[in-house]
């Protein structure tokens, strides 16, 4: 399955760059547009799997632009600085799939994109890296074509690493995302599980230790 395509529409260049970097690291192909007109024009050249759309755009406001995407059944996530419930409801009513307020953390954005894609049946359910294949829909891991047994804790940890690939995750983040808040474990247990995964999947240099921070799954797509 090829990489999912994301169209980023925001008038601030730095914000576009930040989102693009985060998404590309996570394995998405990104295209940018700085206003509504350019965004709609880009649709002639390629069709995104999802659009990240800023509400406060010059010339055409975000809500008007969204119509074009709703028409083509392309899912939309609105980005905005406004917290008001009225705006949120307006956005959702216009056909947006989700709504995220600035400033947001990269992790949150990635998670929301994933949820929307999954809901629309467009998610990538298979991940491949260095002889390992992970099928998320079946919760199956194969090394060199052969099924490998992982405990559910190991699997959850693996999934979080993959979905945030190329971004470092602290031990606390891993504990929380993989096993839930109320797992009163020592962060040492993360280290142990990482070791096990590395061994089982031959991923010694795929799961990289980030000094003093945590771990990162490195997987360059291009």
């Amino acid at each position, binding site marked *: 399955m090829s990489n999912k395509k994301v169209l980023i529409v925001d*008038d*601030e260049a*730095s*914000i576009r760059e*930040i*989102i693009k*970097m*985060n998404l590309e*690291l996570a394995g998405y192909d990104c295209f940018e547009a*700085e*206003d509504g007109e350019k965004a709609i024009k880009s649709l002639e050249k390629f069709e995104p799997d999802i659009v990240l759309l800023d509400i*406060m755009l*010059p010339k055409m406001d975000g809500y008007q632009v969204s119509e074009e995407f709703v028409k083509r059944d392309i899912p939309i996530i609105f980005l905005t*600085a*406004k*917290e*008001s419930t009225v705006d949120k409801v307006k956005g959702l009513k216009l056909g947006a799939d989700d709504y995220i*307020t*600035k*400033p*947001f*953390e*990269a992790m949150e954005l990635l998670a929301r994109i994933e949820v929307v894609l999954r809901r629309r049946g467009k998610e990538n359910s298979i991940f491949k890296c260095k002889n390992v294949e992970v099928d998320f829909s079946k919760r199956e891991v194969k090394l060199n074509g052969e099924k490998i047994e992982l405990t559910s804790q190991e699997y959850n940890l693996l999934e979080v690493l993959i979905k945030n690939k*190329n*971004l*470092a*995750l602290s031990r606390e983040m891993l504990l929380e995302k993989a096993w839930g808040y109320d797992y009163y474990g020592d962060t040492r247990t993360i280290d142990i599980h990482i070791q096990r995964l590395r061994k089982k999947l031959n991923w010694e240099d795929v799961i990289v230790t*980030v000094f003093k*921070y945590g771990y*990162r799954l*490195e997987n360059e797509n291009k």
Partner: protein
Amino acid sequence: MKLSLKIFLGICIPLIIALVLISNILIRKSFSNDIRDEKIRGIQEFHFMEENIENAFWQSTVSSEVIIKSYADYYKENGLYLIYYENGREIYTSNTLIDLEDSELLNVSENDVKTQNKTFKGEHFLVISTMLSNGSVLVYARNIDSIYHIRTDLMNLSIILIVSIVVIVAVIAYIIAKTLTNPLRKMQTEMGKLSKGNFDIHLKEGRSEVGSLAKSFNKMSEELKNRDEELLDLVNSKQEFIDNLSHEINTPLTTILGYTELLERADCTEEQKIRFLESIKKETLRIKNIHQNLLLLSYKKNADLEMKRIDSQEIFDNVRDTTKVKVAEHQIDLVITNRIKEFYGDPTLIVMCISNLVSNAIHASKDGSKIIVDSYEDSKNVYVKVIDEGQGISKENIEKIVEPFYRVDKARSRKNGGAGLGLAICTSIMKMHHGNMKIESEIGVGSTFYLEFPKNLQL
């Protein structure tokens, strides 16, 4: 107590009291007159009787008792009674009801007459006594029940009359009370609307006390309506301000957070690291800029300002200095004509205000254009004009551009580092100097900004 009840009682109670008093006084007077008349008449009658009896005593050989008895029998038919005492002992009486055992009446002398009104077993008598020539006491008593009956009749009649009159007047008083208090009740209902937030009241005005009260109320509700609308406007614009501010701060914050996260967690190249850190610094300074400008906007007290006389050349030199980088960048021909002596106000703020206008003019104009700063004065004010030949401002936008955070072209303005606060600050500065700012502009031709600084600031 309700006003209508007060009016009602105010009419009825005095009426009742008056009627009762009047009838009481009249009946009493009439009664005492009657009594007096009876007394006079009685005494006359008595004297007449006394004379006859004395004569009879002289002429007749019969005993006095017999004489008295015969007179008593005669007068009994007319309701007159005689009682005869000798040596304090009752010898004869024609009416056994009358009992004068211990009465003063028996203590009477010969040429003296004593009268008294006495009641025996419910019957009223006028009693008169005197001493006869033979030393005996003669007492005359006449039944005066009729006078008392008259009085009772009059009292009954007056009660009936009073009650009837009071009932009629009560009805009239009720109608009057209700009618007088009607406008007040109407006012009360209308006022009730006010308390529910409905300011559309109109009461009938007039020249009476109630009418002019209505006029005042109408005026008041009009005032309240305006005040209410003003407040709503204020609340809305405050909300808008907060929304805009929020957005202006959020955007740099998003950039700072985003780059920081990437630096922390992604494998960045050296070039990227340097670039990200520069951006973070730039955005942080942008927030600082907004913060400082906001403080300026909310400046209210003149006392915080350094108001003094400033040499005008000093101000214009400062303006040229402040804007020299931008002027050079865009190859602007900045022409400043100083035709005034001095400014009165805060030098920093005046320089800031004029520099902001020049800066805006530069952004609106093409590179290499001319921008004119002209100044002149009259007896009242000092005037400064900033004229550009830039792209101009449309009519609808002229009013809005002085609002905080409003930008006509967001993309262009943000690229220049602006937050849309420049003109809002200028307005604020002019207000602090009790002055004025006017804008004239035409699309495609250019704009002129006028500043008016009053000369005599009474602080």
